[in-house]
């Protein structure tokens, strides 16, 4: 091919690609989507670097998805004047995250650990997959990967279609309704509008989700399916081992002058009923708090948070997240969380 024709092909390609990108971005924006961040190991690693801030300046949060929705970071930061470092990971147990911080001698700060029993007390491989990947990525991140992430964040802050879990080729192709063979398990997809994430790793449900009853049903359908898992809850020696492991890691942080507190964020409806049946509060939450000699803030023990309702049974809507955060700050203040002294360990509730 002549140089001229090759150049013409290149220009045609460039025009088509540019047209597509503009059209694709415009299409999703017209559907109500905005630019959000990929809630992945890269963003997690970026925040993990912030965990070393002093006790006076920041509190680190670990847990599963609930604390990501329920802690309203702007509210937290405006009331406390402290940074909230959100290190919770969706769909994982925080135990590996706790272990990572416990074994990191440079971490001497304040840590709030959210407990979602169905994930916290599970050792199923998928429960630790994301946390293992994120921790591994953080510790092995190359200079090139760090620089790439900065370019990536800059692009994600401007372009809606760069949200991988919603708009990537894999996510889009997974939406094709094709029947699977009997015995093949495929984790159900959440509705595209369900969870949005900011640069601070604050996750929230947007209005286009909250006003869409079909989308809400889509999420409750996933919880109902997961809730039908017949695997019995961990018990006996295995449960004691978990308590021991958690206590060992909490003690490591405390021995360096750090503070740790446990929280249980709200759940509602059939999901909450299922959790209460499978993981009774007295046997799991109360025992965990007592064994680890920690303070615990359970949403049911606070008259305000007790009545909060999760629209899709498991996470709070943004306005309720503000209420929950205000209550959390108040309870933590009572425990001396924001003073330089140790947290008192004489009560189990707030």
């Amino acid at each position: 091919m002549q140089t001229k024709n090759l150049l013409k092909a290149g220009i045609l390609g460039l025009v088509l690609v540019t047209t597509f990108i503009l059209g694709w971005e415009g299409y999703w924006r017209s559907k109500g989507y905005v630019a959000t961040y990929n809630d992945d190991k890269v963003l997690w690693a970026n925040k993990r670097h912030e965990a070393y801030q002093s006790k006076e300046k920041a509190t680190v949060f670990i847990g599963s998805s609930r604390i990501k929705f329920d802690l309203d970071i702007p509210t937290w930061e405006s009331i406390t004047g402290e940074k909230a470092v959100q290190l919770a990971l969706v769909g994982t147990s925080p135990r590996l995250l706790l272990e990572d911080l416990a074994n990191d001698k440079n971490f001497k700060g304040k840590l709030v650990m959210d407990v979602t029993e169905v994930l916290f007390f599970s050792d199923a491989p998928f429960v630790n997959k994301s946390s293992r990947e994120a921790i591994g990525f953080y510790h092995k991140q190359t200079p090139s990967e760090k620089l790439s992430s900065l370019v990536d964040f800059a692009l994600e802050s401007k372009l809606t279609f760069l949200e991988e879990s919603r708009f990537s080729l894999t996510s889009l192709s997974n939406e094709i309704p094709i029947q699977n063979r009997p015995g093949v398990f495929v984790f159900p997809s959440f509705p595209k509008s369900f969870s949005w994430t900011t640069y601070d790793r604050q996750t929230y449900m947007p209005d286009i989700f909250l006003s869409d009853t079909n989308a809400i049903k889509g999420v409750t359908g996933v919880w109902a399916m997961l809730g039908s898992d017949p695997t019995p809850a961990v018990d006996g020696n295995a449960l004691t081992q978990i308590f021991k492991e958690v206590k060992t890691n909490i003690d490591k942080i405390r021995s360096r002058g750090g503070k740790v507190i446990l929280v249980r964020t709200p759940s509602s409806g059939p999901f909450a009923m299922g959790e209460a049946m499978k993981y009774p509060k007295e046997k799991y939450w109360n025992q965990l708090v007592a064994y680890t000699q920690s303070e615990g803030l359970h949403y049911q023990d606070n008259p305000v948070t007790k009545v909060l309702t999760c629209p899709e049974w498991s996470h709070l809507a943004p306005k309720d997240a503000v209420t929950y955060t205000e209550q959390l700050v108040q309870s933590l203040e009572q425990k001396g969380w924001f003073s330089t002294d140790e947290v008192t360990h004489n009560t189990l509730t707030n």
Partner: protein
Amino acid sequence: MLFNSYTFIVFFIVILILHSMRFAWKVKKINLLIASYIFYAAWNPPFVLLLWLSTTVDFFVGRALYNEDNKRKRKLLLVISLIGNLGMLSFFKYGGFILDNFVTMVNALGFNYHPANPGIILPAGISFYTFTTLCYTIDMYKKESQPVKSILDFSLFVTFFPHLVAGPIVRPNQLVPQFQSPKKATRHQLVNGLFLLSLGLFMKVVMADTFLAGPADTVFTAQNSLLPLDAWMGVLAFSGQIFFDFAGYSTCAIGVAMCLGFTLPQNFRFPYAASGFSDFWRRWHMTLSAWLRDYLYIPLGGNRKGSVRTYVNLMLTMLLGGLWHGASWTFVVWGALHGIYLCAERWIQQIRNKTQLQTPHYIPAVAEGKQAARASMVPSFFTNLFTNQFVKMLFVFFFVTIAWVFFRSADFATAWRLLSSMFGRVNNGAALLPTLDIIKVSVITVALLGTHWLMRQSSVADLIKKINWKLLGIVWAVMVILLVLSQKSSDSFIYFQF
């Protein structure tokens, strides 16, 4: 630094700008050298020291080898270079493997020895740049080419970032002469290079990582036996993934070098169209095959020392080729399988040659009508089937795919479990892959084989020359759009670990 990263895009734009500015050629070469070190250091900065060590030792030892006439001193210098290069490779790549095998052996002998894990990190691309520098010192020892006069040119030859971490493995005479006079990409080279870069990234990010890595990983990490359909789909997915991943990297490397005005050797030529196993190795990772042929197989004696020795040399070459890919016995078995394939092919070829030599004796028989009787025993359909190039291609692809099972499996237990599943030797195998994955793997495998078959005598460069510019523009756009849509569902190149 990975080609499929935002860092590389920024890095490459800066390099293109610097390379197109009106600096002296020496300054441009220094720019490229510094850029190459940055490219490497962006992965793990301390390992740049290894590159410097390897470069310096081989530059001076190479020159001394060429100028030295004393045989003993020459051998000593060669040994120094070999110890330096292979010693470094052995420590970083095979240290853990050797220790593991030693521990297994002494424990089998009754000693209770359990050392701590040495935790050696493998420097990216060490196998590639070690082979690059090794061939230089061996050439100097044999006095087959002139030593490189400038350490700048030699450093750039070893470190030139497009080929540094995963090839193509370049020879001094392929690259060093290109550094001797100013090089700047023509407009044609620049656009062509950008097309190849897009094609390579499309192969890696879209085909290998987005479409094929998932089903391959799911099947190769399954803990239970599978239904034959699932096992085959996983293995076929890996056959496609490894090709798109590695050929994608080579295509990117060639394209990037072309954008700067340099030419790197071709590394893949539609390998799944191979009509034989030796043909496969003339098409797959061509620069490694040529390296192993020139610096291992031929020095071992090649086919010059009799039939038995030829088979031994073939097996040794492929066993070491397998070990070069990874410090694990599964890679050795992969190499051994290819060695057996090559030996079997050679043996059959020898028998056929003998038969053909005897053919004149049959000519009178044909005249007497005896050929008809022979033909009735071996139907012509059957004879044609096995001489049909397409059937040969499928035959080779089948055996190459079987060998990939050992290449990808973490251990022999996984490999045996998968092979048993593939050939229906298990009861109650599980269905694992979603229907969408089965469709993706099937469509891509058929398209891959079809493309390789149609392009077997051609090249991408030929195709670009023939194709209408509008069609090329549309194809290019589709590739880039799919690349954009694939987003971050991409990972390191598989061959980085080698």
